[in-house]
């Protein structure tokens, strides 16, 4: 019974952590390359989740929901890059952080102004779980694992195998030097915000599939995603995903000892202790930035 309990808790932690990871992946890219914590990522995810409601019009099924969400996330992300973050590029990280908080508020206000506060759900069938050993695996769980692995693989190969990815890493390393050596930072940043938007949209729709679609969903996901990002060291995609999973595991596995209501505090404690020992986060070695 003891093993089964902990196995289940660990599995729950893994899945919750992976949902967080996808948003963390979006944040870590922006953090690594544009050099600020993007507080608007959560609300971009929310917009993605709402756009996912259009999925059934396009063709139905989880895939279409996700595609609609990702498209909307990317569009919003790139639009705000041109309107807001590009003009702020030369200023301090704090300016961009505050502007991104403003953007988060503004986006959410626009959503609630036009669509109200009601929760919505995707019209997907509710399927019973398959027992796998002591675990009960739901189709959503598999979708989330697959999406997280694919997203991480995609980000990793873009960064390391494509020319634009190489330039992204160069900009992340030293924006000034990259500019001098003839890299057009603008194009790199557009690509980066596009990918960040796609990832945020993906995390929003998956969260919507798993839970319900509501205007606050993305903002509520933001704190754990921030924590995952810095736990895994900013600018490190693998770190972001592992950071999310680690926090998810720590939160769920702690519940037999501290109770359910304190588990969010456990996530913070893990982050704090890690940073006291390793101020750069866990995976500083493979980070985009140093």
């Amino acid at each position: 019974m003891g093993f089964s309990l902990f196995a289940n808790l660990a599995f729950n932690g893994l899945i919750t952590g992976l949902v967080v990871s996808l948003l963390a992946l979006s944040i870590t890219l922006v953090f690594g390359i544009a050099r600020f914590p993007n507080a608007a990522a959560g609300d971009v995810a929310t917009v993605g989740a709402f756009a996912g409601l259009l999925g059934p019009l396009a063709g139905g099924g989880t895939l279409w929901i996700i595609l609609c969400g990702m498209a909307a996330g990317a569009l919003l992300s790139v639009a705000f890059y041109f309107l807001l973050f590009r003009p702020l590029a030369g200023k301090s990280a704090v300016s961009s952080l505050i502007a991104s908080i403003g953007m988060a508020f503004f986006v959410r206000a626009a959503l609630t102004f036009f669509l109200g506060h009601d929760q919505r759900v995707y019209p997907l069938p509710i399927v019973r779980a398959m027992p796998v050993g002591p675990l009960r695996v739901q189709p959503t769980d598999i979708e989330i694992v697959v999406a997280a692995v694919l997203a991480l693989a995609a980000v990793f190969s873009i960064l390391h195998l494509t020319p634009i990815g190489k330039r992204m890493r160069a900009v992340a390393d030293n924006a000034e030097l990259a500019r001098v050596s003839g890299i057009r930072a603008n194009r790199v940043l557009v690509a980066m915000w596009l990918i960040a938007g796609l990832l945020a949209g993906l995390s929003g729709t998956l969260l919507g599939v798993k839970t319900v679609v509501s205007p606050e969903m993305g903002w509520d996901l933001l704190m754990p995603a921030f924590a995952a990002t810095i736990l895994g060291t900013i600018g490190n995609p693998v770190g972001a995903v592992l950071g999310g999973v680690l926090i998810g595991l720590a939160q769920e596995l702690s519940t037999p000892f501290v109770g359910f209501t304190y588990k969010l505090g456990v996530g913070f404690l893990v982050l704090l202790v890690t940073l006291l020992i390793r101020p750069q986060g866990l995976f500083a070695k493979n980070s985009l930035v140093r």
Partner: protein
Amino acid sequence: MERPVLSMRQVLLAAAGVAALGIASGQAFAAEPFLVGALNPVSGAGSPYGSGMQKAIAMAADEINADGGACGRQIQVVSEDTQTSPDAAVLAVKKLIDVNKVQVVMGTWSSGVTLAVMPITTAAGLPEMNTSGAPAISTEDKADLVWRFQATNGRFGQAFAKIAKERGFKRPATMAYNNASGLGNTEGFAKAWKEDGGKVVASVVYEPKQASYRSELQQILAANPDVVVMGSYLPDTTIILREWYQSGQNPDLKWIIPGWAANEKLVEALGPDVTQGVIAVDSISNENAPSYAHFAEAYKKATGQPAGSNVYAAMTYDMMVLWGLAMQADCSKLTPEAINGRIRGVDSASGDKVFTFAEGKKALEAGKAINYQGASSQLAFDQYGDVTPDFSLSVVEKGEIVRKSVVTIGK
């Protein structure tokens, strides 16, 4: 209701008309309007109810005014939004009292707002009428100026316990959203259930806004309960029920859920299979009373919504009617304190039952004692100024929420 666009000319004409009317009515009644503050949760967490509550107060005021006013005084309602936040509510009530000079404040919803507003209304000598559940409201009201039109959390719990017992459940578990109302409901249930000799097999308090409640659910299911009593809201209930159904564990488990979480939207979100057999409990209005029929018809006309969709609207409607009757009971003294002191008088058990303001006014003018039977409940305030409404028991059957019975609990 409102014309969307007015030209400047129309506005000026209308203003002139209103001014003329004002002068005319001023001459006719020789009294200025009586000002009432409607303080409702129009935005924030209470927003599904706030607008309806506000309209219900206006409706009651219109009825009083159509009947010639209370003691010849027209009722004028000034509305404010609490934003379901104590800070905003404190400033809102200050505005109502100091800027608008209202003589009574009615319609606060969440307990936090009521607890923050009470000291201010009490200091100003004004009565406060609310629909909040926290027990502390009764103990903090030392001047007997606060009136509660909603069942306390504890009474909700008693209703849950009574229903669980009637339905023959033996092994209940509880799950509560970590806020005052969630805890109040489940702890009220546990108290009543244990007093009756029962045992609660598991209880979990969860933080809201999570991506999953599977671990919480797992702890409940591991205790193998036959029913889970919830103190929850719509989004978390949706996720918890779906995760329970998907897990395939304890498929015969039943759920007792407050009506604000187990409603049409829950059924719509999850479909008939998942929600089959869910028991929804809600405080209900005084449905068999003529006052409710009267209110329901007017509410439908004013808002286009069925009265059943917003139990709090009937409560705020009763606030206004009751206040009007308390005014009418002695037209020589119309100070807030004096009117407040007459509230129990127009709700007296020995009086003639009346169901509308007009009936009550006629009876009062004939010198009779009256007992206003509200649209929300029969009222009958206890020594704390609290009412005891009835509860409904509904069960979801094939995607329909079917009312099974009405549950009455003792005081």
